[in-house]
């Protein structure tokens, strides 16, 4: 300790202040921690911009402040006398400072074009929907300009990924096993760059993210997936809707959102138009349709199945409409049609129980229907190989990955006549239905089962799909969110 009487936490504070000093001071003197803090407080008081306040508050606390703390520090600095400025800053960020668990957090300024929040993918093996988009996208970005980050365990600031976290994000496979490693003790401080949120952040990060979007002077860019928790609130928990509404408080202060479909982009544009009532404009909204890519695993050809296979893929929940498909299939079986219905998807206990009870009762009638939960990739791939048609009459989607997967596998699709699934359907290979009308779904299934010419035409249409893949999507997204 060079004989000086300083605690590790003061040393860490000194380091953090030293890291931001070149941004705020014209000349960085060799000063003690108290002197440096006073100099920085004076500098920010003299140029009291939100970005300066956010930066100083971040360095003092060792974590990102909330918007209320940015306000408190700004007001405190404005009213403080030169001798009380340091104290005003410390008092303003006391809550965040107390939330930082490590006393030895140091800081580094992010030296990249974008800081990319991949927290969920770095901490979880789960790989559906959003995670597939995130993992397939960020792996194609140059690590020199796109710094991947996760939140510290205490939720106060971004850290570089551990080696294990990095593998979970960019080298994911269904069999990958990684051991947890201790997190970095270095807070990442973005200054004048882009912070990217390709995931929908967990609730506990939202207050700090709002302050970054609103006050830090960094641009914030997001991938917009859907507004299902709001538009189809009858199908999600109150907590899910609650989190989404708070997520929108980040959105309204962000710079740009890229919707995964035009439908999703329109949802965010609609939200922007509502913001006029509070004098805000909201972010620039772009759209970039996800690529039409088949399942990762493929399996060799085999004997044709005994019965034509009608396939349904998707999590088991009312929004995906499994019971509507089952009701449609039942009416066809009652008419004497023969085919097999295979429903693939996991879900909550209540929903799965309800579906399986209905399936049991259909099987007692001698009808060929089954439900696969947590099926391995090769079973899914075999189902896509063998299916006569995919049925996907979802009530709302931001995109509709199974539709794209089926089309990329050369399988015709019956899907909803509006929204993102209708967008994908414009490329061909689809029959569009009203998902709220069981009879309409039944009519479409019957057509594609009995009309071989129609089926052949739909299969032929699937071959004309764009061959653009994830690297193209990743490049175009980078342009929209970072360089435009």
């Amino acid at each position: 300790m060079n004989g000086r009487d300083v605690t590790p936490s003061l040393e860490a504070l000194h380091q953090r202040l030293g890291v931001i000093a070149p941004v705020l001071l014209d000349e960085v003197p060799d000063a003690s921690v108290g002197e440096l803090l006073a100099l920085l407080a004076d500098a920010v008081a003299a140029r009291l911009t939100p970005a300066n306040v956010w930066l100083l508050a971040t360095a003092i606390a060792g974590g990102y402040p909330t918007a209320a703390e940015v306000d408190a520090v700004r007001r405190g600095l404005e009213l403080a006398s030169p001798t009380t400025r340091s104290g005003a800053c410390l008092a303003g960020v006391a809550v965040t400072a107390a939330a930082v668990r490590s006393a030895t957090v140091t800081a580094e300024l992010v030296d990249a074009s974008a800081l990319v929040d991949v927290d969920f993918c770095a901490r979880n093996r789960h790989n559906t929907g959003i995670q597939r988009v995130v993992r397939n996208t960020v792996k194609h970005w140059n690590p020199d300009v796109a710094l991947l980050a996760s939140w510290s365990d205490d939720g106060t600031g971004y850290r570089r990924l551990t080696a294990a976290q990095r593998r979970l994000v960019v080298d994911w496979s269904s069999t990958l096993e990684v051991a947890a490693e201790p997190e970095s003790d270095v807070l990442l401080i973005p200054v004048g760059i882009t912070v990217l949120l390709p995931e929908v952040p967990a609730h506990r990060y939202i207050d700090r993210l709002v302050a970054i979007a609103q006050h830090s002077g960094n641009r914030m860019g997001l991938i917009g997936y859907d507004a299902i928790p709001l538009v189809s609130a009858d199908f999600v928990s109150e907590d899910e809707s609650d989190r989404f509404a708070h997520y929108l408080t980040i959105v309204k202060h962000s710079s740009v959102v890229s919707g995964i479909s035009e439908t999703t982009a329109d949802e965010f544009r609609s939200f922007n138009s509502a913001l006029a009532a509070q004098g805000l404009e909201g972010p620039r909204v772009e759209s970039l349709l996800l690529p039409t890519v088949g399942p990762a695993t493929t399996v060799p050809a085999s004997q044709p199945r005994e019965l034509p296979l009608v396939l349904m893929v998707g999590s088991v929940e009312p929004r995906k409409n499994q019971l509507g498909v089952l009701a449609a299939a039942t009416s066809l079986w009652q008419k004497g049609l023969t085919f097999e219905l295979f429903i693939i998807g996991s879900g909550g206990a209540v929903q799965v129980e309800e579906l399986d009870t209905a399936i049991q009762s259909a099987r007692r009638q001698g009808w060929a229907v089954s439900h696969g939960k947590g099926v391995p990739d090769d079973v899914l791939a075999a189902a896509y190989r063998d299916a006569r048609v995919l049925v996907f009459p979802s009530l709302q989607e931001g995109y509709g990955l199974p539709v794209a997967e089926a089309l990329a596998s050369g399988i015709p699709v019956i899907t909803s006549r509006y929204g993102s699934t209708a967008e994908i359907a414009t490329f061909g290979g689809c029959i569009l239905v009203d998902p709220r009308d069981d009879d309409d779904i039944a009519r479409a299934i019957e057509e594609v089962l009995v009309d071989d010419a129609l089926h052949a035409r739909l299969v032929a249409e699937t071959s004309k799909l764009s061959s653009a893949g994830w690297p193209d999507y990743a490049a175009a997204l980078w342009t929209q969110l970072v360089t435009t």
Partner: protein
Amino acid sequence: MTDLGTGTRALVRALLPGTSPAASEKARVAQLIAGLPRPTAGESWLLLSVLTRRLPLASEVQAFRRRAAREGVGVAIAASVRSRRSPARWRDLPVHVVTDTVLLDVHDSAFTRLVTGVQRVSRSLADSWMPRGAVLVGWNASRTQLLPIRPLAWTERSRRSPFERRAIVPWGGWFTLPEVVTDVGRTTRIAALAEFSGARSMLIGDDAIPLTTAETTGPKMPGVFSKYLVAASRMNVVACISEAAATEYSGWKSMLASAGLEGPEIRTVMLAETAPVADPAWKSRAEEKFLSRDADGVLPLVLCVGSHEPRKNHEAVLHAAELLWREGHRFSLVFIGGNAWNSEAFRTRLAELRDGGRAVVALRGIDDALLWWAYRLAAFTVFPSINEGFGLPVAESLQSGTPAVASRFGSLAEIAAGGGCVLVDPHDDHSIAHGMRSLLADETLLATLAAQARARPPREWGEYADHVWNLLME
């Protein structure tokens, strides 16, 4: 009100017009089975409402129709009747089918003594619509049945047995919801009623703040509000209380396209703006309560009305005031309004300023009679809210002849267009301070704005209720 009676008799009358109900229960069920081989969603909803004596959820309507398609309507009806055998259901009242009736759901307003903006709307509609034959309704304890509220219980604000001893279900007619419902059991049944009953349904749209400004709402509110919006999405029309509220609801409505939903028509019926009557008997008490003095005499009073929730931006008002006091301006600052969630920082800051000798105080539990005087005694009011559906305190201030400093967008800007206001950016403390300073320092401006405020014509509550009625009847 046309009452078709209860049970299968009412169902035959409602669903098989031209058929007279048979003499026996069994024969009437046979009539229904023969007449409704594939019941529509609406018919299924009414069958369930009457047979199970509970207003069904949309998912129950769907399950009923699927069962009817699969196993026949007779099986589905028999299962619905069986569901009432549980002892827990014996107390459910028989359900009367009513047609051609205006129902006004004022459940919460019937049970509260609060008089917030929402209650004022409910009361004005109820008081003005009852003489036209509208039926006020509330909900049973399990929120499964609609019960008429006895008119006398409503007018006397009696909370003891306010309901009639019968349940009703509308078949056609009109249904209006003037309250923001946070009880999810109730909103989900209202959603199904709006979708299936055939009634022309209307909801009063106050604002969509829990959705657009979630950072300022209490815990859990956005989640509950989302379920309320599901009910809104099934209505025919949302009558918004300002253009700003309509802007929010229109944005929300256009999101519904992604779920293939059309959503309600969004219209605006601007809330009333009435002059609060200041009773001379209360004047001296009000002066004693609200006015402060310094060595030079009575300080100009700056008034800020509203609960101390973050959306009202009271911490910014305190900061702006302190900047002005430091500049040497003479005034006292009085807040009137209850505590709300997250008001600790405001109270702490206010206590610090008081300790520093500033003339600032926060009062709550103030009688309306005193509040009306506070508006009149004030030099001007301050209301830099982040987002408002209407902003009643600004309207009340102006109708009292007192200028207001208000946010420069949304409903406050709409109100301000009629004169008497200084507009500021509520996100900028200096802009708020600038607006207040201009009224403290410029007597001519203050007098001009006060004259503008006094010249504003009032808009009465009866007029508001008439407009909403006409919209419902379109």
